[in-house]
């Protein structure tokens, strides 16, 4: 519960991500990604990260910047088509890529945060995604058993944060952020705006401060 504690600079936040850590990063093609913390990770020269996110962005955008800077050893994502550097590094054996259908990725992260042992999805049955996975038949239909994902650190972007670190998200910048807020040991949120407690009504909070370990300062 990030209550009334000092906000971190992006550099301080990046220092909380150890080399080799498994890191969830919110965003969809960089929209809803914590840009300032990503830049700080690149500046620090982070190494050997396993990154869980929707995609690897573009070479100059979102998770793509971490890929280009050589911070990423492994990526668990649904799409790499917009970042040719990821493809090159994958072919060169410099990055390991696990491709996960987008809806399955969302449910696996949600399951990790919700204490579920897994979920059964029809997505991927009869495709290469099914390789090595258990197929269960429920009421006559086949499903893949997909296991939960959790991380050491989640790096989120949000629209507003109050001093308790209650968070709101904005339009399509929401995407994976609220799911990841539930699924990591250390949760760091980078807000566009910081507001006093009580400014965000209880029905508009999307991630409660109790889940957020650290808040990054608002942009200057």
């Amino acid at each position, binding site marked *: 519960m990030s209550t009334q504690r000092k906000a971190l600079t992006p550099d301080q936040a990046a220092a909380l991500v150890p080399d080799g850590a498994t890191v969830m990063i919110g965003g*969809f093609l960089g929209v*809803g990604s914590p840009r300032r913390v990503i830049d700080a990770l690149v500046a620090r020269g982070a190494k050997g990260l396993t990154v869980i996110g929707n995609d690897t962005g573009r070479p100059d955008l979102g998770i793509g910047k971490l890929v280009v800077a050589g911070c990423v050893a492994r990526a668990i994502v649904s799409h790499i*088509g917009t970042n040719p550097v990821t493809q090159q590094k*994958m072919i060169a054996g410099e990055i390991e890529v696990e491709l996960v259908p*987008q809806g399955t990725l969302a449910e696996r992260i949600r399951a990790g945060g919700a204490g579920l042992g897994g979920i059964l999805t*029809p997505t991927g049955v009869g*495709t290469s995604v099914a390789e090595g996975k258990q197929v269960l038949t429920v009421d006559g239909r086949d499903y893949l058993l997909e296991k939960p994902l959790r991380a050491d650190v989640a790096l989120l972007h949000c629209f507003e944060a109050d001093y308790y670190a209650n968070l709101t998200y904005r339009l*399509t910048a929401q*995407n994976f952020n609220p799911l990841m807020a539930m699924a990591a040991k250390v949760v760091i949120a980078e807000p566009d705006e910081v507001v006093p407690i009580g400014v965000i009504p209880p029905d508009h909070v999307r991630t409660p401060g109790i889940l957020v370990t650290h808040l990054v300062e608002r942009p200057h």
Partner: protein
Amino acid sequence: MDAKEIIARRVAQELRDRTLVNLGIGLPTLVARYVPDGMLVAFQSENGIIGFGARPPEGMEDPNLTDAGGGFISALPGAYAFDSATSFALIRGGHLEMTVLGGLQVDATGRLANWMVPGKMVAGMGGAMDLVAGARRVIVAMQHAARGEAKIVPELTLPPTSARPVSLVVTDLAVIEPTPKGLVLRERAPGVSVEEILAATTAPLTIPDTVPEMRL
């Protein structure tokens, strides 16, 4: 009318009033331009919005509001924004009447391949596998052939997107329906003969007695 417009206009005829529809990136996006007059269709962008509109006026773009391709969009009155788990709950849960997706190949059983070419291009499936598994109707919108090579083939040579057959394939030459008995030619593009379609297709095609022209 160019190839893309033919495809988009014909796919738009498959839209149904008061339903939720997802359009894939690229060609399928064009379908939104041809919604029949008086019809209300709710378009979902799987990155998190139902009810998006055109790119806003210059200087009014919002970095927190884009489509699944990363392009700036606007939101219509009554729009709904949501997270990725909700997005795919809508898709997987049968709440999506229709999805329109691009394709690399469709085979004789109606299976689609559209997410990678081994050794060449690995895009990733993004939301495509969930969309094909979950939407009530799956429409493939693609050029009939690519650089002289057939895309409607006897058997996929590329990794499938789903084991589930698609509902309809709309190309610049034809409308083809996968059925339990194989692919059936339903319509021809304006001025295109059955022979031209057969010549551009390597999968077996059933040809009914009459194959009407698309009405665009």
